[in-house]
């Protein structure tokens, strides 16, 4: 798989992703997203010791399943994860997408077991952060636990805000909001906010947004026609960010 990095002049360049098992928190390029903390070298080492970096997940492989006991949270290092619930009639309901630097598994917090399942949309690497060790470590680094709860609360909040938006708004607004969300999450990890590749299928997008695949495609072509987006399969370029915000009804 490939990821996008922004050049000095703002244009996107493609670089191969190396699954580097040697990576640690101090040299991880995501640590500004994951750990915006003034941790000293020694503290980082200790944190690094509790974090487990497992083998990459293959496409469609599960990280955890609904009902699993909540023991750890996970930071996505590369690739994209999809969270979903299984409805009463056995169908999949997508509840979220997680990009590098983002933490997932927090839905376990309210009843101590995972409320949804998580699987890889493409080859992905994650860091596992066991909660019990984190608690032990926090007694030595009081800032750390607080930081994790801050991260968690931010994820939960963004999740809810998106769900709320999606539950009410028109198809244009929903697709627009998702594109803006992906764009701002890219920007957070210093990737291009205007040019990216969608890691998920139109089916997943439709499922997540509560729209049919046809509607998703129609919205994309409408956005193309209005010169808001350039869409080429999974490649997206945002041509008119303020037009997109208008469309998503997120102007304030």
């Amino acid at each position, binding site marked *: 798989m490939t990821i996008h990095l922004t050049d000095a002049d703002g244009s996107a360049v493609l670089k191969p992703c190396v699954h580097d098992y040697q990576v640690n928190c101090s040299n991880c390029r995501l640590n500004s997203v994951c750990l915006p903390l003034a941790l000293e070298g020694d503290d980082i080492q200790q944190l690094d010791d509790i974090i487990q970096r497992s083998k990459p997940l293959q496409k469609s492989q599960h990280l955890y399943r609904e009902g699993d006991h909540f023991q750890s949270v996970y930071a996505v290092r590369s690739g994209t994860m999809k969270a979903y619930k299984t409805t009463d009639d056995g169908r999949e309901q997508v509840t979220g997408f997680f990009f590098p630097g983002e933490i997932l598994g927090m839905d376990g*917090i309210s009843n101590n077991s995972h409320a949804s399942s998580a699987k890889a949309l493409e080859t992905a690497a994650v860091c596992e952060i066991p909660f019990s060790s984190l608690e032990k470590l926090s007694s030595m680094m009081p800032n750390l636990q607080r930081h994790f709860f*801050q991260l*968690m*609360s931010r994820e*939960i909040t963004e999740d*809810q805000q998106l769900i709320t938006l999606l539950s009410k708004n028109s198809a244009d607004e929903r697709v627009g909001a998702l594109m803006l969300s992906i764009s701002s999450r890219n920007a957070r990890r210093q990737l291009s906010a205007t040019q990216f590749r969608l890691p998920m299928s139109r089916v997943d997008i439709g499922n997540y947004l509560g729209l049919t695949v046809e509607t998703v495609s129609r919205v994309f072509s409408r956005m193309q026609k209005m010169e808001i987006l350039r869409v080429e399969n999974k490649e997206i370029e945002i041509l008119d960010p303020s037009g997109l915000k208008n469309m998503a009804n997120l102007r304030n």
Partner: protein
Amino acid sequence: MNSIPQDLVTSTSIPPEHKKDMELAAKYASQGPRYTSYPTAPQFRQDFPVDQYRAWQDTDGDHKRAPLSLYLHLPFCNDICYYCACNKIVTREKGAARQYLQRLEKEIQMQSQLLGDTRPITQMHWGGGTPTYLDNAEITELMHMLASNFRLLDKGYREYSIEIDPRTIETSTIALLKGIGFNRISLGIQDFDPLVQKAVNRVQPYKEVAPLVDSIRSHGFRSLSFDLIYGLPHQDRYTMDETLRKVIALRPDRIACYNYAHLPERFSSQRAIDRLTLPEPEEKLLLQQMITHTLQSAGYLHIGMDHYVLPEDELARAQREGRLQRNFQGYSLHMADDLLGLGVSAISQIGDFYLQNERELDSYYKMIDQSQLPLTRGCKVTTEDKLRRHIIMTLISELKLDIGECNRQFGIDFSTQFNKELESLRKMEADDLLSITDRELIVTHRGRPFLRNICMPFDAYLKSHQGDESPPNFSATL
């Protein structure tokens, strides 16, 4: 929109249609408990049988599996509201919340060991103080502590509620509360008049509350509740009319009104309120009349004790079906018999016991730091108490009492045992507050504002105080 009759707001005299109710209100105005427990908290003692309680907890039985309700007391506030009589600590000191959370975590762990971690938590309420004094990370952390030590539910029927100070909250926090499992919110509105708000040091303009209400609704909270207070400084029929208009426009599912009792000698913050700005007793009675008439003509049902709900609200349905309960959280659906209170001064109702945590923060910290459960007061409920509790709580929740059922359940003859009490009630019956037959007591519509008066004859402790602190001045019944 239905509101109060025009003549009521344009004249300064008491309108004729309110005369009868107001005369009754004046006649029955007295001091009395709100009966969130029986025996009431002033009857608790330090020398209650805590060993018996712990021994009972160590036995196996239904109390190890039955549903449980949680109350968390979060005492801190950024600013003081002058009317407040709650156990609270006003501080902006950084780290206050952190110190408290550390103790709370330890208390949660100790209580979880004692009560077990398998009882389903059907209800939970965070009150204060100001629960949203905690920031988003601390709120998340506290919910995680609870989830790690108790069996929280993600079922739709759970009732997880939190009190919100509209001045401290941002939309992002509303989203977070929803995300970590809360499904009910109560807002401390008190009054919308700017002068009243200023006089009680709680300024929260309507134009800021309205968008907050929109946001709460858009996040899909199942129920929104407002707290209002009458009897505050500068309140009069005009300000109340305007406040009620605004409240009705926002249409909360539930409205709880509280009577402000001015007791500056007991609550130091109330000394900041100028006695001369308080509404005269007769005006205050009128305010209460306005609230009850205006809300009911706007479609709200008066379920009792100054609590109003929309007819489609679960509480209204529960009252019709006899599934309403009253405890320290006020009215709620009857889903769990036991209530565990956590945090400084919190009260638990578990099995045959009432237990109150230490009320002083420093002593509470000290006990927790010594790995001691911070239970310092309480009482064991006697057989007699249970009978009287049944009568009082049933009257307050269901607005009636089935005498035959009471006789069967407790093996008594109601009319002989409560001969004296019935005598007091007959005087109220003459004023059309309730009807008394051999089979039941029924609180009339007119009698609903006088529920406390109707219950007080059954309160054995009003005549013989058993608490180890001097009996308090209760807030006025009306």
